[in-house]
């Protein structure tokens, strides 16, 4: 762990020394015995069933370890016995708050292997739905954030406004949580009548929601003192642990797959900004997500005005056989880099699918970042890292 040690913060270094001291003292003095605290598996701050085992010295964490696997569903194995169109049903359930975004990279990988490209209209609508699922996902994060710190109001705002977005997704795809709308070569259906006007109205509401959250939370003194300077992740460490998405950009790395990796999607047809923050603390991670929600509403607004006409499905055979080869496609999902490594043997189903989900990497930094924080901050640091259990365990 030489690299990690080099960039250890002062506080973390002190905590480490304290832990060593606590161990040494244990046999000599009785009063500062270490204590093991079990958080979870059922705990309101863990967004599902994650268990965190923390060893404390007084109020300080000297060692922490998340224990996953309460929701392992074995999608990588299951995908090997399914056909390509059937896999989208599975991957929908990985990050269940932004389901549509999970389908896109898998479909893109299959299309890449088949050398098929979706028509422009389908690419446009895909991008719009992708950003809508981002808004639905992150707006819940913004509301939930308050609850971790004792602010009850924002979560009601979040559930209220997320419902508008879910209604849009339901209107277009038929499913609120698990659309299963993406097809190899395009989309299942076109947009319904009146959807565009409704979307514009909802985007306006969502921008108001972002302003409200900014007033309620980000300007709040308690929120700031609970998040600023806490759980700092420097740039080097963030990269090494493979943090992605808002967590990486909050550590000052200017990397957004939507902008930097050309994919057959419509992001480059809209004018938007990638936000970064130099601090790398809990506050920065939350703030980046707030800005990203705003940018996402802007992307949707712009794209919805410029949907090209044309078909929504490319010509693909009825029974889909994907030619032999390997493909990797990753997109910037609400939680970070989500990618699929698809190996095909020219059969009806994939030979091997490696699912690279963002939360798995994002939470793997927890043992590092939790070292040295105080007990109440465990919750805020984890909340700001933002993981979804289905996305860790797959």
């Amino acid at each position, binding site marked *: 762990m030489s690299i990690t040690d080099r960039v250890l913060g002062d506080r973390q270094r002190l905590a480490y020394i304290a832990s060593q001291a606590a161990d040494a003292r244990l046999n000599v003095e009785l009063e500062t015995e270490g204590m093991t605290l079990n958080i979870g598996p059922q705990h309101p701050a863990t967004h599902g069933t994650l268990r965190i085992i923390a060893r404390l010295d007084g109020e300080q964490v000297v060692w922490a370890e998340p224990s996953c696997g309460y929701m392992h569903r074995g999608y990588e194995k299951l995908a090997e016995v399914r056909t390509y169109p059937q896999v989208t049903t599975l991957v929908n359930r990985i990050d269940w708050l932004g389901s549509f975004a999970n389908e896109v990279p898998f479909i893109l990988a299959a299309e890449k292997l088949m050398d098929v490209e979706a028509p422009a209209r389908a690419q446009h609508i895909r991008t719009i739905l992708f950003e809508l699922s981002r808004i639905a996902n992150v707006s819940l994060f913004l509301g939930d954030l308050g609850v971790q710190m004792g602010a009850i109001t924002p979560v009601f705002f979040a559930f209220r406004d997320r419902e508008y977005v879910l209604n849009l997704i339901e209107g277009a795809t038929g499913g609120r949580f698990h659309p299963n709308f993406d097809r190899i070569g395009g989309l299942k259906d076109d947009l319904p009548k009146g959807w565009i006007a409704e979307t514009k109205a909802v985007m306006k509401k969502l921008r108001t929601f972002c302003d409200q959250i900014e007033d309620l939370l980000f300007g709040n003194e308690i929120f700031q003192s609970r998040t600023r300077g806490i759980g700092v992740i420097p740039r080097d460490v963030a990269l*090494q642990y493979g943090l992605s998405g808002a967590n990486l950009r909050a550590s000052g790395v200017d*990397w957004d797959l939507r902008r930097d990796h050309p994919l057959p999607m419509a992001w480059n047809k809209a004018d938007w900004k990638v936000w970064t923050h130099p601090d790398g603390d809990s506050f920065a991670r939350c703030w980046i997500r707030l800005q990203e929600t705003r940018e996402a509403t802007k992307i949707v607004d712009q794209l919805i005005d410029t949907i090209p006409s044309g078909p929504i499905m490319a010509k693909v055979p009825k029974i889909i056989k994907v030619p032999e080869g390997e493909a990797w496609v990753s997109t910037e999902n609400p939680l970070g*880099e989500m*990618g699929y490594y698809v190996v095909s043997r020219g059969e009806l*189903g994939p030979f091997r699918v490696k699912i*690279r989900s963002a939360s798995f990497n994002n939470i793997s930094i927890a043992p*590092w970042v939790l070292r040295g924080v105080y007990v109440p901050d465990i919750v805020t640091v984890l909340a700001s890292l933002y993981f979804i259990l289905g996305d860790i*365990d797959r």
Partner: protein
Amino acid sequence: MKAALGDRVVDSFHKDDLWLRVRTDAWKSSMRTLRDTLGFHYFSFLSAIDWMPSPYGRGEDDPTEPPPVRDTTIRPGYAGGDTRMQVFARVGNPVSHVSVIVKVDVPDAQPTLDSIHDVYAGANWHERETHEMFGINFAGHPDLRNMYLPVDFEGHPLRKDYPLLARMIKPWPGIVDVEPLPGGSEGGDDE
């Protein structure tokens, strides 16, 4: 890149993406070179592939029939390979946004590889996952406990010769549980 890695690269492949295959004994040093000399600081993922096709197919065999004979010859993918198991990882350069997929053969007799958790700290959990799913050992890894499965779980689920039991017990697609419709003379129709 070739110049920096020298003869450690066995094979490479380029098509939309870049694949490299490095020598098994040079796995860790190649990753270190990629990180320190070539600036691939971003660790995306690490996993493994079992190149032997599954003897169970897609689990759709009729249990009343004798099992069909399947071709289980090992055919490696891009950038070649000599062994049944391969570990592969993807690392990226956060400045130039270039990424590379690095593959490495895992010896069949003793599936052990050097751990790269001290090169890329994020590889720690990925190696744990690969260990429990494929049974590949990572020498020098501090803690290869099971990540998802119970401690007393036997076998390595993502190996191709591990059967998907749910499909072994019950034939697929569900043709057993069709109850006759009330009033129907011929029973239910199964789609």
